[in-house]
């Protein structure tokens, strides 16, 4: 690694930032006294949808090494949306439990995008003459 210009951020970097922000927002809400609210979850649903659409839209432009990770991230972001929808229909302890599922999904999506970034960087590095 280390051969790429760090000032150039591509779509994958922006999607990574979006998934990191989504995880941060969900974990902040979960850590609040009283836990996350349904209003919080509605906002997360929008963020998850936007990140999933960006990731899907970028698939065709991704390096082969990164594609599978991005596709996995899309799956996780869709699971995030599904669990948010389920959370919105639940209450009490079931609601808080489903929030933890949403958090786990968001964490997994951030991991997958991060792995895509690593694959992209590694591929770029391998192409660069040492």
């Amino acid at each position, binding site marked *: 690694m*280390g051969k790429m210009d760090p000032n150039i951020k591509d779509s994958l970097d922006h999607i990574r930032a979006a*998934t990191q922000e989504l*995880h941060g927002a969900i974990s902040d809400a*979960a*850590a609040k006294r009283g*836990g996350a609210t349904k209003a919080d979850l509605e906002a997360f649903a929008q963020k998850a949808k936007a990140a999933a659409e960006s990731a899907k839209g970028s698939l065709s432009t991704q390096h082969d090494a990164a594609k599978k990770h991005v596709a996995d991230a899309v799956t996780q972001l869709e699971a995030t949306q599904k669990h948010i929808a389920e959370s919105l229909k639940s209450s009490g302890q079931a609601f808080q439990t489903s929030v933890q599922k949403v958090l786990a999904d968001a964490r997994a999506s951030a991991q997958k995008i991060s792995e895509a970034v*690593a694959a992209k960087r590694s591929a770029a590095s391998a192409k660069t003459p040492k």
Partner: protein
Amino acid sequence: MHNYIAVVFDDTGKAYEGLHALWQLDDAAEVTVHGTAVVHRDALGNFQVDTKETHPALATAVGVGVGALLGLLAGPAGAAVGAAGGAAIGAATGGAVGIAADLGRADTRDQAAGETRFVLGNGQSAVIADVSEDWTSPIDTRMRSLGGTVYRRAKSDMEDDVWFDDYYIPNSYLYPYEYIPSSYPLW
């Protein structure tokens, strides 16, 4: 290579400098950091992991995850006690508590030291991270300049360990971005 690392520092402030430096290396595309956490061991040997997850069940889960990761980094000798001690690490969120079984127990410590030499001593702090790196020198050089000692295990090695259990896949409990609690306002 996809590796897990533990960078041990003699004090908490340095550990957070190390955490910041790690994410700077990521920003410079020198390495890719997938997740990080900071763990402390106080003078009495109690563990504490810095987390914002205050929900008791989640704090315990984080503790189990990070505890398991400490065990995985310590090698097979540390695995069982790392996982066992993890629940206590989780319970320590927001305040250290003692743990019954931990990596500091003399027999475990000696065995772990023989295998990987990774031990978090009393009063020390460690940055735990899940990273992809094509070369180890960027992290090693930067952390050494901050006074840290780097311990590293390949993710594939950890998964090959016979005691590895999917339940303890630990990276889910590492923050996928730079998280510094407000109690450490360094930057």
